[in-house]
Structure formats: structure tokens, C-alpha cells
């Protein structure tokens, strides 16, 4: 174990960078950029260091730090990592330096961009690390500010509309969330006499009536469903994705959308197990609708970026499906997908962003025959497309397969319908690919420049990681699974729910099959 507060260091380093950026002169953007590179690299280093010391096979919270923050109200500053949050932090830490490299062409208001960029990283890290409900809520809301400015300040044509829409949707979601958090804490106080927002204390407390639990679950649900986004709550997402700057979309798709799933896993499941079991069919239904709806709407999009945005709705459907299958395998699949989706969708958004920088358009109809003009670009895009579809060999396949398998064990109809979505994904992605890249290039597309070395450095790591995890998922699964088991055990302990036995068998064979590889290979 590490005896210094590594998690605080991870969360605070970008914020320190943000403050330093404020003191750089406006006319020296390279200083602000340098500070941003240094701090995101330092954060990534700290995160990998933390990953190195993370104990595999341990489902509890690790590196826990706890200090009193507002003792008058029982609010603590508690940070910790377990299998649910570990890889979200790693992915975030890796995406940020890549995003910085992708933003190299940015020429205006660089200082402000870097400030919000670093603040965003702190907020995201805080969300995944917090083990105190109010602290979590603080970061959850704080996230809005830099994201709002990034979308509104550096987005596309309708950026103001998108920025405000994003802010209001998220804020509307968190309104009920806050009420639910406060109600939970005061009910706990009424029962035990202790006012606390400490997640672990509330998790162990078993004093909620079933109906109360359902109400509180719904309070949390709205916020997480908007973030996820689940289908009736998704309307903000395509607009915001389309108008956001490239890096904004990468972070939105890669990390922000996972926050909903993370919230369900971390908070809804452990705090309201009864309600989670009761309402699982509702969530399964919504996620299956999301999978089909996302796929169908994606296939009729004219805008390439919007198409990928809708594909994210479908992908998030698989993640929620895996989570609410309430099986260890399903949870494994969902957690794995939460690592994989940022890599594949991130690569696609980056490539579409580069396409936009070259052609000033994202309309599929205006792009044609790029294969002949820019073969390297096309190769990368094809690999990203295949990874996004979930072709075996890429990480997307493992996650979706496990999520479907977990669902199939308990709720067959949902799994069967959801599997259709996998085929749809191939249809809309390959169709779009064919229209954009094949045929002969017309006049405006003939001058399409190929990828530069910098751009290859930006995209390649994501695709390499996706391929690596697709071929060898063990490093992730080993660290994720103990926590998934803890979550399911918590259900069995607190509710009548029992995980089907067959599940256990499959997990064992899988473990036998996996080669005993050296741990920590993902550091490379």
C-alpha cells in the first residue's frame, strides 16, 4: 500500500495546474499549454502508479483517505478506489493528455481553454473518487461549469444552445438527487442518531422501508438516467455531442456518460438494494429500448458526429443492461464496456473531429471517396469502426458479450432483443463508412490531407488499447470482478434476490481458460 494520499494528489494536481494557468500571460499561450501538458502527464503518472499498487482480487475500497470537512453537518472528505471506479480513473487520466494533443491546433483563447480543461479533469476525478455523498454531489455539480464553458466557448455553430441545454438538463437531474441524498441522511439520523453522508456507513445501514427506498431510488435515478442517458431522458445528448468541440465529445462519450452507469452501480445498488431488484425490469426495458432506438436513429443520421452520438445511446444501453442483469457476469461486462467504450468512441470522435478540421463539414453526403485520397486516415477509421461495432478481437466485443451473457442467464427475452442491436450497429456503422470512404473522390474531397504524425499519436493509443483488451481482457477483469462479486453479495445479503447458480460455473471455467499472464501488463 501507499502511505501518502495518492488519491488526493490525483484529484488535486489538475486543479493546481488550472490555478497556475490563470497566472500565465494571455500572450504566451504556450506557457498555459505547457502547464496543462505537465499536469495531465503528472496525473496520468500518479494514476498508473496507483494502478500498479492496486491489489488484485480485493473487492473493497483501497487507498481510502478520510478527513472531516464540515463536521457541523456530518460531511466528510472521503476518497477511495475499488474495481468500479479504478478503470474509470485510469481511462480519464489517459484521455486527458490525448485530448491535449488533439487540441494542438487550437489557436484562440488557449489560456481559458486550458483552465477549464484542467478544472474538468479535477471534477471528473473527484466524482469517481468520492465516498461521501455530498462530496460526490459537489464534484457532480462542479463538473457542469468547465464542461459548460468548453462547449459554449469552443463548440460548433449552435454551441450556446447546446451548452445551456447541457447545463439545465444536468441541473434538473441533480435537483431531486440532492433532495434524495439529504432525505437519506436524515432518515439515517432519525434511526441511528448520527448525521452522516459517509457512503460506507450508509451502505451498511439497513433501516429503510421498502416504499421509501423506492422513492429515494427514483430521486437518484433521474439524475443518473439523464447522465447515462436512458431513452426518455436522452434528448440533450445528440445536440450537445454534435455541438461540442472534439475533445468535449470525447470526454462526454468516454467519461461523462459512464457517470450515470457508475452512479447506479456505486450508489443505487448498495444504498437501495431492494428497490434496485424491484425496479430492475424497468431499467432492463429502458436499456433495451435504448439499444434499439439508438441504433435505428443512428442509421438515418446525415451528420457523422450525430451518428456516433446516437450509437453511444445504444452502447450505453448495453452497459445499463449488464448492470441491471444483476449477475456477476453482467456486471463484469458492463464494467468492461465502461473501459472499452471510451477507447473506441473516443477514437471515432477524434477522427471525425480531424475530418471536420480538413473539410469543415460532417455531412455524410458531402464526403466521398476518401479511401483513395487518404489511405492511412481510412485505415484508422476502419479499425475504429470495427472496434466500435464490437468485432471479436476488439474490447467492445468482450464487454457486450458478457453483458448479453449475464442478461441471458436471468432475463432471456431482454438478451435476445438486445442482441439484435449488435447487428444494427454493424449496419449503420458500415453503411456510413461505405458512403464516406468508398467510390471516387469528387472535387472538394480530392485534397483531403492524410493523417499527420501527431494525429496518429493521438488516435493510435486508443485503438491499440482496445485491441489489447480485446485479445487479453484479464488485467481488467481480474480487478473488476471482486467488486462485482461484492455488489452481488450485498444484494443476496439484503434482499431475497439470489444469483442463478449457473453463473458461478461459467466464471470458474473462464478463470481456468485465461492464461496466467504477468500482472500489470496494461502499464505498457
Amino acid at each position: 500500500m501507499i502511505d501518502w494520499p495518492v488519491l488526493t494528489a490525483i484529484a488535486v494536481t489538475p486543479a493546481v495546474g488550472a490555478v497556475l494557468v490563470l497566472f500565465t500571460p494571455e500572450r504566451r499561450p504556450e506557457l498555459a499549454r505547457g502547464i496543462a501538458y505537465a499536469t495531465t502527464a503528472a496525473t496520468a503518472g500518479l494514476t498508473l502508479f496507483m494502478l500498479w499498487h492496486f491489489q488484485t482480487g480485493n473487492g473493497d475500497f483501497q487507498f481510502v483517505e478520510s478527513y472531516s470537512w464540515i463536521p457541523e453537518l456530518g460531511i466528510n472528505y472521503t476518497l477511495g478506489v475499488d474495481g468500479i471506479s479504478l478503470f474509470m480513473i485510469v481511462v480519464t487520466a489517459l484521455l486527458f493528455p490525448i485530448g491535449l494533443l488533439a487540441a494542438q491546433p487550437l489557436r484562440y483563447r488557449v489560456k481559458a481553454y486550458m483552465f477549464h480543461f484542467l478544472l474538468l479533469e479535477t471534477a471528473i476525478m473527484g466524482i469517481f473518487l468520492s465516498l461521501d455523498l455530498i462530496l460526490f454531489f459537489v464534484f457532480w455539480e462542479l463538473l457542469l461549469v468547465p464542461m459548460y464553458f468548453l462547449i459554449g466557448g469552443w463548440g460548433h455553430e449552435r454551441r450556446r444552445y447546446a451548452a445551456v441545454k447541457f447545463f439545465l438538463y444536468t441541473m434538473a437531474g441533480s435537483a431531486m438527487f440532492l433532495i434524495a441524498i439529504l432525505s437519506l441522511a436524515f432518515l439515517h439520523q432519525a434511526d441511528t442518531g448520527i448525521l452522516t453522508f459517509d457512503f460506507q456507513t450508509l451502505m451498511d445501514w439497513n433501516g429503510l422501508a421498502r416504499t421509501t427506498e423506492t422513492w429515494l431510488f427514483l430521486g437518484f435515478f433521474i439524475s443518473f438516467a439523464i447522465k447515462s442517458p436512458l431513452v426518455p431522458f436522452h434528448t440533450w445528448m445528440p445536440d450537445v455531442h454534435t455541438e461540442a468541440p472534439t475533445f468535449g465529445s470525447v470526454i462526454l462519450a468516454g467519461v461523462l456518460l459512464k457517470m450515470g452507469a457508475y452512479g447506479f452501480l456505486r450508489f443505487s445498488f448498495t444504498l437501495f438494494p431492494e428497490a434496485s431488484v424491484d425496479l430492475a425490469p424497468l431499467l432492463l426495458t429502458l436499456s433495451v429500448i435504448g439499444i434499439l432506438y439508438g441504433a435505428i436513429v443512428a442509421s438515418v443520421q446525415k451528420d457523422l458526429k450525430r451518428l456516433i452520438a446516437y450509437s453511444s445511446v445504444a452502447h450505453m444501453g448495453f452497459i445499463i443492461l449488464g448492470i441491471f442483469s444483476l449477475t456477476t457476469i453482467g456486471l463484469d461486462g458492463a464494467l468492461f464496456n465502461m473501459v472499452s467504450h471510451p477507447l473506441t468512441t473516443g477514437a471515432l470522435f477524434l477522427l471525425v473531429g480531424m475530418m471536420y478540421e480538413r473539410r469543415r463539414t460532417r455531412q455524410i453526403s458531402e464526403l466521398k471517396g476518401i479511401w483513395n485520397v487518404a489511405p492511412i486516415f481510412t485505415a484508422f477509421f476502419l479499425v475504429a469502426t470495427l472496434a466500435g461495432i464490437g468485432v471479436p478481437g476488439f474490447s467492445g466485443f468482450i464487454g457486450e458479450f458478457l453483458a448479453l451473457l449475464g442478461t441471458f442467464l436471468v432475463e432471456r427475452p431482454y438478451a435476445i432483443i438486445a442482441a439484435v442491436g449488435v447487428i444494427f450497429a454493424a449496419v449503420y456503422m458500415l453503411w456510413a463508412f461505405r458512403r464516406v470512404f468508398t467510390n471516387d473522390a469528387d472535387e472538394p474531397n480530392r485534397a483531403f490531407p492524410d493523417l499527420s504524425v501527431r494525429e496518429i499519436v493521438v488516435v493510435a493509443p486508443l485503438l491499440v488499447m482496445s485491441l489489447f483488451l480485446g485479445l487479453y481482457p484479464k488485467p481488467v477483469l481480474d480487478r473488476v470482478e471482486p467488486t462485482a462479486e461484492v455488489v452481488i453479495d450485498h444484494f443476496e445479503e439484503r434482499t431475497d434476490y439470489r444469483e442463478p447458480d449457473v453463473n458461478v460455473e461459467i466464471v470458474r471455467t473462464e478463470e481456468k481458460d485465461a492464461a496466467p499472464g504477468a500482472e500489470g501488463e496494461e502499464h505498457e
Partner: protein
Amino acid sequence: MSELTTPGIEWLALLPILAVAGAGIVIVLGRALAKRAPGVYAASLFTAFVGVVGALVFTTYQWVQVRGDGAYLTFGRMVALDGFAVYLSIVILIATLLALMVSAGFVKRAQLEGPEYLALLLFSSAGLLLMATANDLIVVFIALEVLSIPLYVLAALDPRRAESQEAGLKYFLLGAFSSAIFLYGLALVFGAVGSTNLTTITEFFSNRVLLDNGVLLAGIGLLIVGLGFKSAAVPFHMWAPDVYEGAPSPVTGFMAAAVKAGAFAAFLRVIVGAFSLQRNDWRGIVWVLAVLSLAVGSIAALTQSNVKRMLAYSSISHAGYVLIGVYTATAEGVAAALFYLLAYTFMVTGAFTVITLVSGPEDRLHSIDDYKGLARREPLLAGVLALMLLAQAGVPLTAGFVAKLMVFEAAIDGEDYGIAIVGVIAAVIAAFFYLRVVVTMYMEGDEPDDEASDSAPAGTLLTRTRTRIDVGAGLALAICVVAVLAIGILPNEFFEFARDATLYFRLPT
């Protein structure tokens, strides 16, 4: 010959009021004697600062004394010196100090009558301080008048703008009207209880039950109406948007921060404190006031195109949050209301300081269109205003978030879920119009069309000359920024302060 016995007097209890009012009198005398001699304004300014800083020193001493020896009543039980009074005195004095700092440069730029302006501000502040310590309905009434009359004049002080005259007249008419209603309520309460002293009223109810309490309830209702006017709670808010818009900007800031604190001082002490046993009768009224203030304040603000008017409606909705604290009628709720008033003082003064600075020498540029591209022209001022508005919207790590959190906590602790839900929904609606200003400042006006087409180096886009931030306003901004962030990040000390203040405040057990 029988001697006239006068009540024992603890002068210490009145020292802050005397210091502030005394400074005001010195300024008026100085102006009368020195006429238009050069340096009169500078000397007046100095006197004003000495008075307010002196008063702050005295209140700090009072705080130590109250915490050591406990609260006490003096002047024939008409003045109460308890934690509550000292806490609100400190809030009022901070607001006054900040208003003076902002006004120092503003008065000069706007060429108003300098010394008079300062004296009026100080007299109003003295009235507010008296309000915080008043323990008798008569004293509350006197304080109400002392604080209001200078404000009527201050609102109308700008001779170049007709709106200012209109604001003064409107404020005067409606203010006089509300004072009359308050006075009538006072009379009815006196009729029912036989005393105007708040302590006597509490004692009266502690061992008696009124079988026929119609007069009393009418009296309480009228008192609430009178105080509702001063705190600009809906439906008694009609004056606020016009007066806020018309009054000189620093005066508007003072009204929003200090006057609100003073009005709620009376609200809490009279309604929550003295009539605590009748709380089942008045809580329904306060519930309606709170919900209406939250709803009307945040919805009406959406449609405003004048930033000062918008902040007027926003201040109405903030009054709604404080009223949630009043409504709970618990120690938690009172502490939350007190905390809110402290946090709001910094947020709103900071916002109005920026508004004053960017409004031009004539104090006219308040349309939302005037804020287009402010971030380019004035990155510092736009940044501060954005922080203040986000804080008012309740973004975490700012004072506004903690303040709202405390209010909701108090409501949910009392199992008043309905009003808490109204509060959070109002916060979401309110976020929209605060964002509108931020969007205008940061995302509109002289913007590049696209990422690559903009290669112009920073600096060429500055079209207008920069606003000069004078020392006083700069200092006020710095204090507000530091306070908003400090309260937001480390709220515990401030909250303990607010909670200690309620410890020495009588509440139902």
C-alpha cells in the same frame, strides 16, 4: 419630590449604532460648515470608513462579550444584545463597508452630492443595526423608519436619470404604505397582548392562552405584510424591480444585501422568536410567501433584459430561500437563514460592484446587450461577475451552494419535503437566467466564426477602452471573491458562527 427613574443603560450595546450614526452626523456637519471647500469629500469618506470600521471593532468586542457572559437586555428591555443581534450587525456592517468602498469611486465618477450620499448611507445602516438589536415592536418600527427614509433619498439621488426619481418616489410611497400597515399590526398586537415588548409578549404567552385570538392573528398578519414589503417577498415585491433598476447601482447593492439582512432580522426576531407559540398559525402564510417568492422571482427573472432588474427578481427568489429557513421555525432553520444572509451579502455585493464598474460614467449601461463580449473587453470583471452569478445559482465550492444546502437540510430535517422540492426546482430555473448573462459575456459579441479562421492575436479585439477599477471597488471585489470561495470551500467556521448566533436566541423548545 419623586425622582424620575431611568432605566439602566449598557452603552456598549449601542456603540456600533452610535459610531455609524455619529460618523454620519459629523459628515453632515462638516458639509454644512465647510460648504464646498476642496477635500470635503475625502474627509467625509475618511470619517465614514472610521465610523464603520470602528463599529465593526465594537461588534467584535460584543461578540466576545456575549459568548463569555451571555446575552442581555438593556434600555428597559427594549434592546437585546444576543448572538443573533451581533451576528446580523456584523453582516450589516460588512455590507455597509463594501457599499462604501464601491461608492467611493462611483460618487466621484457620477458627480453626485458626495458627503450627503455617504451620510445617508450611514444613517440607513444605523437604522439597520438598530433593527438587529430591537426587542420591542416600537423600536422595530423606529428602526424601520430610520433605515428607510435615507434609502428613499438615496434611490432618487441621481438627478440625470428620470428612473432614479421614479425609483425614489415609488419606494417612498410603497414604503410609507408598508410602514403604516406594520404600525397597524403593532397596534393590534398591543391590543391583544397589552405590550409591545417582545420579551413581555413571550412571557405573556408562556402562562396564558388566548381563547379569542382574532385580533392577535390579524396583528401578526399585518406585521408579516409590513416586513414582507421590506424583505421584498412575493406578493409584496412590486416595488423591488423598479427601485432596484432606478437607484444608483451601489445603492441597489446595499439594498439587496444589507436591507434584506435588516428586514429578516425583524422577521426572525418578531415572528419566529416572539410569536413562536403561534407558529402553526403563521407558518402557512410564510409557506405561501416562500413558495411564491421562489416561483415568481425565478420565473419573472427569465424574461428580463436589464441586468439590474434581473438581479432584482433574483433577489426576490433569494428571499424565498431565506423564508424557507423562517418557515421551518427551528434552530436549524434560523441558522440556515442567518448563514444565507451572510453568503448572499458577498455574492450580491460582488455582482453589483461589477455592474457599477461596467455601467459607464452615467450608470446607464445595464441592458443585457451591453454585456456582449464583456469577457474580451474586461476579462477580470467578467470573471468576477461570472463567479458571483454562478455562486448565486448554487454551484458547488461557492458560498451559494453551501447556503442553499443548509436551507434544504433544515427543511428536510423538519420533514418539509414539499418546500425543499420547490426550492431545488427554483434553483434550476434560476440557473437559466444567471447563465444567460454568462453566455452573453463569454459567448457573444466579437467572436471568431470557427476554430481555424481565428488567427487574430489576443488584444486586437479590444474596441472600447478599459474600465478603470478604482482602489475601493477593487478591494471590495477582492473581499467578495475571497469570501465567496472561502465560505464555499471551508464553510464549517462560518456555519458554526451562524449556529452560535442562534444559541443565544430564544426559540421554542
